[in-house]
């Protein structure tokens, strides 16, 4: 579904991603793990079109998407929930949701809205309130809801657990796993907490200093020396 | 072979000041020398350029180093010019501290009042960022003429003051003798016919804008629907233009509404006509004015150089680039923004005092928004953070109109086009420089040279 080939991204002199290649299959969750500054967010932002790659390419459903604008990429079916609170606090909850996927037909958008409200009932309850009145966890739900409103085939989640209570994290991640299984949605999930991420994901990739340090099934990665190295700070 | 100076000596503050003093005196010396060889007209351009440069050194510190875009420096020049005018008129005969240097005392007073004005505006502006400060100072620039109109007796109202400037030993040529100096004649001319008329017009414009007095409108005093009124106006005005064809020359490098520039042009033309009046010391008046302006620019340039290259320059830049980080290391962003304003107020006021002397006149028409815009334009063109850039910018705003005028004459363009060509060029150049060479002409050149030498 999504193929990343030899992708390199840099911020001036800082090489954030170096020759990264990986594949994201449909219908399941793929985890991306790695220490702070490993380049996880950079990978996600590049896939969504917010950063331009230095070299390499990204192919989605047979089309090269690297270098395109974010507003075009989201139309092709890739939705990013960026790191942090990516809601617009000046708008109401419902307006935040309605913002997603405005190019789609009225019927499609209504269907998506109903689905989001059934997934996150709290959003329906608060639909007329300002997004700034939501709690952190509710806001994260809103951010995911906004992404789902665009009708994605691939959902990019950048640390949805940041600053959330473990219970909510589990809830959200389980919902994500459910969506992947039921609707064929591909999910690329960035997580600091490797154990949690690998419990949800079927496969995973380890990033270290901008390079792929390892990949495999969750079970393999959890048992891997590589991973231990990186998290113990003795890595490469 | 470069001499090896021991660290201990290099670090002495004295060496630092000495080097700066040598640089500044060398530059000023060259200009003073050139001045003795110049035609009066060109001396007068030099005087104006030096006057603008004096004010722009303050803009370099304020806009360049401290990052505050201000349109209030024309108003600060007005403060200096008016202080100089009022004190020098009233202190003609009284020696101060036993010294009869009345004009010198007036200049010093002008500078001090400029410091206070800078403190006031800077204090108001220190809490404001970018567009808010620009807007506030813009308001000051636009509102200033109205403030001057409020005080007809103290500040001379719309007419302003014509000055007899007592600067060169013995005064400007023949103040009591038969001959009338160019400056005096110009001032006379300005405060008599023509000048008043257009001032009344210009003043009327700004004050009538918000006048929605329906009774007046009903009586037809304000231009109304009738096309006749309009045509009549145009006829009258074009008649006026025909009768004074020599007044439409643009020389002064400022960019005021054309009525204002016309009157200043007429002043410069008069200077041209009576050029060559010899002072007691053998100098032509314009040469005196130029030397005066250059010396003032040198004094101010020396202060600016020490500040910019010294510790304070680094502090201003640090506060500009990252106020939060600066305050974490104990530098107060607010007080360092105010200090930049105070310094630029001081410089602008001194420039204003020089302006009063080289024009021998102060009046609200000199200090409109256009003056502040010219200062900004000059500094941006030359290079926001460079004193040399300010000098180039000052030369630019004096020379460009002259060059454009010649250019337009050769192409046989109408006066209306020719008169406004410099402003159009300024505007486009400012946009272009901001887009393409954000460091200005001189700044970009220096960056390029540095790159080349490093290779």
């Amino acid at each position, binding site marked *: 579904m999504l193929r990343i080939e030899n992708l390199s991204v840099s911020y001036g002199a800082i090489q954030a991603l170096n020759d990264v290649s990986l594949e994201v299959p449909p219908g399941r969750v793929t985890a991306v793990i790695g220490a702070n500054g490993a380049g996880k967010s950079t990978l996600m932002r590049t896939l969504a079109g917010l950063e331009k790659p230095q070299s390499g390419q990204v192919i989605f459903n047979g089309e090269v998407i690297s270098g395109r604008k974010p507003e075009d990429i989201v139309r092709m079916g890739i939705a990013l929930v960026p790191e942090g609170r990516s809601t617009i606090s000046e708008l109401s909850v419902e307006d935040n949701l309605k913002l997603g996927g405005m190019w789609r037909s009225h019927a499609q958008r209504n269907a998506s809205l109903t689905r989001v409200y059934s997934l996150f009932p709290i959003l329906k309850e608060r639909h007329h309130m300002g997004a700034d009145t939501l709690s952190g966890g509710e806001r994260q739900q809103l951010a995911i809801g906004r992404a789902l409103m665009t009708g994605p085939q691939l959902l990019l989640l950048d640390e949805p657990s940041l600053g959330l209570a473990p219970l909510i994290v589990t809830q959200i991640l389980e919902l994500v796993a459910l969506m992947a299984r039921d609707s064929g949605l591909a999910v690329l999930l960035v997580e600091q907490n490797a154990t949690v991420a690998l419990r949800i994901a079927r496969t995973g990739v380890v990033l270290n200093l901008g390079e792929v340090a390892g990949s495999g099934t969750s079970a393999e990665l959890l048992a891997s020396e590589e991973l231990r190295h990186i998290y113990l700070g003795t890595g490469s | 072979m470069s001499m090896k100076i021991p660290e201990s000596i290099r670090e002495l503050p004295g060496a630092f000041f000495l080097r700066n003093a040598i640089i500044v005196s060398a530059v000023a010396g060259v200009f003073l020398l050139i001045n003795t060889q110049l035609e009066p007209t060109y001396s007068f351009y030099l005087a104006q350029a030096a006057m603008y440069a004096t004010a722009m050194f303050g803009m370099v510190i304020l806009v360049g180093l401290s990052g505050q875009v201000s349109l209030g420096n024309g108003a600060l020049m007005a403060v200096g010019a008016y202080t100089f005018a009022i004190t020098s008129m009233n202190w003609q005969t009284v020696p101060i501290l036993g010294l009869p240097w009345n004009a010198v005392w007036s200049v010093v007073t002008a500078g001090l009042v400029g410091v206070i004005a800078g403190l006031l505006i800077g204090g108001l502006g220190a809490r404001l960022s970018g567009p808010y400060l620009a807007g506030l100072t813009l308001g000051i620039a636009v509102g200033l003429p109205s403030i001057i109109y409020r005080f007809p007796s103290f500040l001379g109202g719309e007419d302003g003051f014509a000055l007899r400037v007592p600067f060169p030993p013995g005064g400007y040529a023949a103040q009591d003798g038969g001959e009338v100096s160019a400056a005096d004649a110009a001032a006379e001319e300005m405060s008599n016919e023509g000048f008043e008329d257009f001032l009344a017009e210009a003043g009327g414009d*700004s004050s009538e*804008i918000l006048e*929605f007095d329906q009774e007046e409108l009903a009586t037809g005093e304000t231009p109304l629907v009738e096309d006749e009124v309009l045509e009549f106006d145009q006829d009258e005005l074009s008649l006026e233009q025909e009768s004074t064809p020599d007044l439409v020359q643009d020389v002064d490098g400022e960019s005021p509404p054309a009525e204002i520039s016309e009157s200043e042009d007429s002043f410069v033309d008069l200077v041209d006509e009576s050029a060559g009046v010899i002072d007691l010391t053998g100098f032509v008046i314009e040469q005196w004015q130029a030397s005066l302006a250059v010396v003032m620019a040198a004094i101010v340039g020396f202060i600016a150089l020490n500040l910019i290259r010294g510790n304070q320059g680094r502090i201003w830049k640090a506060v500009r680039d990252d106020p939060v980080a600066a305050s974490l290391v104990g530098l107060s962003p607010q007080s360092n923004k105010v200090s930049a304003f105070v310094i630029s107020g001081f410089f602008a006021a001194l420039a204003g005092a020089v302006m009063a002397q080289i024009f021998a006149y102060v009046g609200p028409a000199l200090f409109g928004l256009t003056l502040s815009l010219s200062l900004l334009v000059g500094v941006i063109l030359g290079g926001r953070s460079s004193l040399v850039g300010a000098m180039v910018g000052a030369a630019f705003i004096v020379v460009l109109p002259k060059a454009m005028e010649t250019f337009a004459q050769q192409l046989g363009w109408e006066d209306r086009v020719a008169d406004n060509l410099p402003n159009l060029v300024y505007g486009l150049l400012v946009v272009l420089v*901001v887009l393409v060479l954000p460091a200005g002409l001189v700044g970009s050149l220096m960056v390029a040279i540095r790159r080349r030498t490093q290779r």
Partner: protein
Amino acid sequence: MTFFDHLLGGIASGSVIALMAIALVLVWRSTRVVNFAQVGQAMFTTFLALAVYRGTGNWLISLIAAILAGAILGLIVHFLVMRPVRRQDGSGAIIATFGVLIALQASASMIWGVDPQAYPPIVDIIGFEAFGRTWPFSRYDVLVLGVTVLLVLLLSVVFTRTSLGLRMRASAFNPTVARLSGVRVSQMLALGWALAGSIGAIAGVLIAPTFSVTPYSFDILLILAFTVAVIGGLDSLVGAVAFGIGTGLVLSLVSGYSDSGNASIVALVLLALNLLLKPEGVFAHHHSRSV
């Protein structure tokens, strides 16, 4: 003239100030730039409209010409100057707007000269007669007020009730999230500039009959509109309208009881007081910005 008369006389001028302030607000909301060239653009389109009026003799056509020209001029400034300049520090953008202002004023002086010109009002500018006296409120004032109210209502509806408005607001508040949601943000910003240009143009044509039009006579309007926009918080259309009309009333009172030359001083004092007393109000975004 009574106190009430002075108040009445300030409504129309306040409306025009409000419109100009709205133009500033629209640009600020879309690109976080205070467009100091806005009033220059309005001056230029007013001259264009005057030329059209002289050619056609039709006031409405001249107004439409101004609206179109305002949009085009706004787009030109946006694409040629402000978009390329956006990567630089804040001073660069501010200075560029002044460059545009200078260039526009010079071009207008070249094309139309600096002599004051009269712009004809479409309807009676002489006050209504009622109860045996003339009131300082004319058909023209009614027109100005009506157009302002209509425009403000229209803008509010567009911003709060339409999907276009939602996209524009989202682009202003958080361009990144808007782009990730599929909004073509650059189009929304351009639209903001075009809309501001048109509204400024309407303000220019509306105020033109009440004073002599020269390339420099709009400067004072710039100060007033800026003052109003800043007091209103720069982000709020409602604030711009309320403070705009309020300022018109205050200026009318000041002009009535002292003289009109004090108008710019009053504006300056208002601005300084506001910036001094509530700088946090200027920067803070606590207040609701739904409109």
